[in-house]
């Protein structure tokens, strides 16, 4: 259907993009039945939703179809009403939510780290700071043996090798979290580049998806890239340790992501709009993030009820599953606040 409409040229630019983006989705969704929930969005949260979905189906018989099409895609789909929930790693502001009749709530806490391919450097050996990472991504530091990297790593012998900067080529919540962190630690980054799901990179190669970045980094000598923690674990990649805001040296870990979350109060923020990067605390991992689920208040009540039921089940029964794939559970007060939020906006 979207094809014929398109040919008649009756679609606005926004709708056209959604139409094209959803061709694959609509094929799958056209047959959606009762007892089926469809969602789309963030690739970051994909492993978690799929794991929960499999267990949830066994227990309740309700099938959850989730497609990792990217956070921006998830937002577009839920706005267009083609899915029951959208997932984004970048929270929407309360104004945007009200304007489009949307609500959002956090799902799980995760983190990302820098990975590299430098001969002789093993996982966790290299130490970086936010300022140095910003300078690498601004193309001010271009060699691995730059004195500013060497100063952080007196014990390592760094080679005279060009740094191949790798970033995401597609719009991504991972990029949002990363650039948001760089904006907090580097005034120059904030004024020149800023934080968003896509930015005007001053240098580097673009890889599509976490997999694309991981593939580039593993295959290009001298490469550095940022990927989410789960990918580092899966692919046994060489990751860096970082100095956090409290000037402590930390390794990426679930405990570090949760430490970051413990310093923010989800329950006080409007629509849970909080960002977990560069939080205080001695054990806090500096590049931590979160994924939000987005629902439409104007969607049929039955549809929202099913989605809420699924995530309520996930919060109650899915926490050890989340931990097993490096997603941090939300603190109990946050879960209570989400329940109150559902009641307030959806009456469920």
């Amino acid at each position: 259907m979207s094809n014929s409409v398109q040919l008649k040229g009756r679609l606005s630019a926004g709708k056209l993009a959604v139409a094209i983006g959803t061709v694959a989705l609509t094929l799958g969704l056209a047959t959606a039945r009762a007892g089926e929930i469809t969602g789309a969005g963030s690739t970051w949260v994909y492993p978690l939703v799929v794991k929960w979905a499999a267990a949830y189906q066994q227990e309740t018989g309700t099938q959850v179809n989730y497609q990792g099409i990217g956070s921006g895609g998830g937002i577009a789909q839920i706005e267009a009403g083609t899915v029951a929930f959208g997932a984004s790693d970048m929270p929407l502001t309360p104004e945007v939510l009200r304007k489009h009749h949307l609500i959002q709530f956090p799902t799980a806490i995760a983190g990302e780290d820098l990975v590299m391919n430098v001969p002789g450097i093993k996982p966790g050996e290299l130490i970086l700071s936010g300022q140095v990472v910003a300078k690498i991504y601004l193309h001010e530091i271009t060699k691995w043996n730059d004195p500013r990297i060497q100063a952080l790593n007196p014990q390592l012998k760094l080679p005279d090798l060009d740094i191949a900067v790798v970033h995401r080529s597609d719009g991504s919540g991972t990029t949002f979290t990363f650039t948001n962190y760089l904006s907090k630690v580097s005034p120059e980054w904030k004024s020149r580049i800023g934080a968003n799901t896509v930015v005007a990179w001053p240098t580097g190669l673009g890889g599509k998806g976490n997999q694309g970045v991981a593939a580039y980094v593993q295959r290009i000598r001298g490469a550095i890239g940022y990927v989410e923690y789960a990918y580092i674990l899966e692919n046994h990649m060489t990751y860096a340790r970082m100095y956090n805001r409290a000037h402590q040296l930390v390794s990426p870990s679930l405990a570090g992501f949760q430490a970051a979350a413990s310093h923010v109060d989800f329950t006080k923020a409007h629509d849970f709009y909080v960002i977990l990067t560069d939080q205080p605390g001695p054990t806090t991992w500096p590049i931590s993030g979160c994924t939000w689920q987005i629902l439409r208040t104007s969607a049929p009540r039955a549809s929202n009820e099913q989605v809420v039921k699924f995530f309520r089940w996930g919060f109650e029964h899915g926490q050890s599953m989340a931990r097993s794939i490096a997603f941090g559970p939300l603190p109990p007060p946050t879960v209570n606040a989400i329940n109150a939020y559902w009641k307030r906006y959806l009456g469920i």
Partner: protein
Amino acid sequence: MEKPQTPSRLTRLWDPLFKGTTAVLAYLVLALLVAICLSLLREGWDAFKTFGWHFLVSKAWDPANNKFGALIPIYGTLISSLIAVVIAVPVSLGIAVFITELAPRWLRQPVAAAIELLAAIPSIIFGMWGLFAFAPWFSNYEPWISDHFGSIPGIGVLFRGPPFGIGMLTAGIILAIMIIPFIAAIMREVFLLTPPLLRESAYGVGATTWEVVRNVVLPYTRTAVAGGIFLGLGRALGETMAVTFVIGNAHSVSASLLNPGYSIAAALANEFTEAFSPLYKSSLIALGFILFVITFIILVLAKLLLLKLERAQGETA
């Protein structure tokens, strides 16, 4: 001799019906083309209106601040395709000449079949092979290229750069491999159409294989050969997945072919689903329109060239 039968009423009705149906189908293609062109222009109008002519010459691509320009993807699309054609044409010519003139008879069919099979490989396979196998291997040789060609005055700047294995040159080489089967297959077909009389006569007066190809086969088939090259170029311009994997997807322009770049098709593949603002979407659709126009111009140039060649051929004949 039989007298021709007068057509029955049914047949007389059938004929215009048949003609009408085929005409509708043919015009449908034309209408579709115009409709696609117009809807691209319509949806991309926002970008053209906002940035004006600067859209075509601006290097900016900053979605966060809503600043867009098409220069880098246009440049990358043209340069990577040009590299592909420069590599693919001599190689295809060699393949076609070998198959039609030099190879032992038993070898011709298998080699020709293999080349046609190469054309059937999906482009994403070339992309994956390019990223996982070719680029890491090629990056070992890029320092050598930098050292040996980088110092040549004039063109040296094309070959100086960091050895990432991924970039414009790699994209051009992968594209060349992808279009070689098309160009080689067409060249082979048309070389076989050269009248044996001409060819045998040339051999008869003592011409070498090279002289026969140069003075008999190529002049006889040049129109079709040029057509084949343009067909390959057209495919290279629009190729998406393979290029996305190996071009580096960087919105930066650099004289060096070893540096990463971007192409229009790769930009669309990467960014369309995540384009978050109306102007961003419009700019991407405008890019699509520009690719459409570039392809159209190339095809028109090809047609003009073919006409000119045909006329020249007519005069010499």
